[in-house]
């Protein structure tokens, strides 16, 4: 069984869900992030957050996948003064919703003051509520951004066990390894991190607190990167227990610290496509499946 702890399913299709389920993915975490285009009012965030805790969870359940999410104002849009304060004020309430397993994605993107303010405020919130924080690291000037990230984590004083630093590569991972933070790796098609490079990191540094995700979203990305990495690990001689550690147990253990990750949802393989969400179905007249 596989778990993808970072995937933006609101941007994906039912075909993706079907392929993911078929490849063995039984659970996901969908962090709140930006949607590829700027949102200009707080109401758009309300609708987005609502879909993360409601509609998207329902869609996933229709394919036998347990869906959890994290809620935050993302760093990119923290830079927009039209919405940032209002969205930050909404976050505490959404963090109390069922199935919300932490604060995220927070962090630096362009490393601006506004980003840092939102980042620190939301890290404090995670600390206060004792829930996991999922931290995005910048794609440009990555090493420096990661150093500043780890410094802020120390400054805020949130327990490092509650922090995952995501989107690591060969340059940033050694920095994170010096802390107790969890180590996230996003596997992308063609660019950045590949399955093969990931296997290299696992060979070199072991499996402890190592986590793999697809970070699939509205851009060119691949929702099957977790199963593909699992296959690459097997091909490189890792045993099944090690594969399960990285692709199942680690992410679950991390997000379980929230107290809101309901394992019975992961373990149940019930699908009931006769169910409706607020009166709506994912079906378009097809025969509902029940198992």
């Amino acid at each position, binding site marked *: 069984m596989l778990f993808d702890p970072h995937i933006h399913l609101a941007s994906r299709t039912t075909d993706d869900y079907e392929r993911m389920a078929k490849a063995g993915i039984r659970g996901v975490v969908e962090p709140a992030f930006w949607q590829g285009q700027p949102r200009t009012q707080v109401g758009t965030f*309300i609708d987005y957050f*609502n879909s993360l*805790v*409601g509609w998207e969870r329902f869609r996933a359940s229709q394919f036998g996948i347990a869906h959890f999410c994290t809620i935050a104002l993302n760093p990119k849009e923290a830079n927009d003064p039209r919405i940032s304060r209002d969205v930050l*004020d*909404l976050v*505490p*309430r*959404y963090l*109390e*919703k*069922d199935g919300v397993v932490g604060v995220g994605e927070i962090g630096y993107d362009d490393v601006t003051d506004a980003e840092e303010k939102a980042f620190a405020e939301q890290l404090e919130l995670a600390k206060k509520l004792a829930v996991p924080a999922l931290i995005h690291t910048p794609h440009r000037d990555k090493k420096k951004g990661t150093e500043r990230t780890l410094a802020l984590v120390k400054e805020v004083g949130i327990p490092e066990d509650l922090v995952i630093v995501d989107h690591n590569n060969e340059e940033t991972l050694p920095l994170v390894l010096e802390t107790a933070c969890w180590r996230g790796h996003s596997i992308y098609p063609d660019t950045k991190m590949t399955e093969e490079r990931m296997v290299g990191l696992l060979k070199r540094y072991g499996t402890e607190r190592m986590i793999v995700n697809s970070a699939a979203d509205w851009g060119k990305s691949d929702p099957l990167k977790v199963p593909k990495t699992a296959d690459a690990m097997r091909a490189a001689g890792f045993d099944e227990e090690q594969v399960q550690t990285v692709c199942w147990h680690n992410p679950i253990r991390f997000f379980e610290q929230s107290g*809101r990750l309901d394992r019975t949802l992961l373990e149940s393989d019930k699908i009931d496509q006769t169910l*409706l969400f*607020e*009166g*709506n179905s994912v079906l378009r007249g097809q025969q509902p499946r029940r198992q």
Partner: protein
Amino acid sequence: MTTMRQAATLLAMSVTERQDALMKRLRAGCPESGVSWLEEVARTALSERSTKRLLDAFPATARRLGTGLLATTTTCEPEGTSNFTADVGGRAVLLLVAAVIDPENLKTVTEAAYDIGDTREKIAVVRSLGLLPDNTQLLPLALDAGRTNDANLFAALATDNPYACQRYPEPDLNKLVMKAAFVGIPIDRIIGLEQRCNQDLARMGMEYIDQQQSADRDFPPELWLAIGPHPPAGAVARMIGYLNHSVEAHRLGAARGLGMTADGRARAFLQERSAVEESPEVRAEVLRSLEALSATG
């Protein structure tokens, strides 16, 4: 009779008394940790005069208190609360605290709880409407719930909830009753419907029955309750016909409807039915209706 006594009680109950009545039931039926969490939230919100505290706690209420049915106590419950679940009760308390902190902004706070709520949270808001002071201003929210596709949310407004019959304008109430009949919600669970029945509703109900019959489809027998008090031409005869229907629920519905008509012509037929009716439930209803008709002359 009980309903009327309870309604009178609610009018006489202050906001804090309504809160206390709910807290008593929550204490009896919920985990202690959840109840003290709720009390703490209320205390902090009151001392900081912060309705944001209440709204931030709104989603967590189901997790803290559970979602089980709250047992009723021996004392009078505020009307429409007898089948409150723990999460509904807890959320109603939060809204009542908001009414104490900032009565001017109760509309804004209640709408915020509803707009950003998931279905369970929305249901809790809708079920609490009858408990809130100055609740006429919450009509737009109730109308929104009445238009939903979500069967559970709609049921929270339409069944065991006094709000719609208290506050809905007639045309909206009629639509709500017809929608309830259409989606299979028993309209005898619309609290206060008897006092709000009107000619237009009776006409709509009758037309619906006609339409179903011409399509050879069934209709909910309780629909006669919406028709009985103002029967259009021909309706009494139709009800009399249904008194002899082979399906017990139809005989029951017709008997109940006839009891509301104040139409003396029905008495002979009810008497006749009472002599041959085998179902004790229908027989009792037939006798009740006879009594109601003789009371009206």
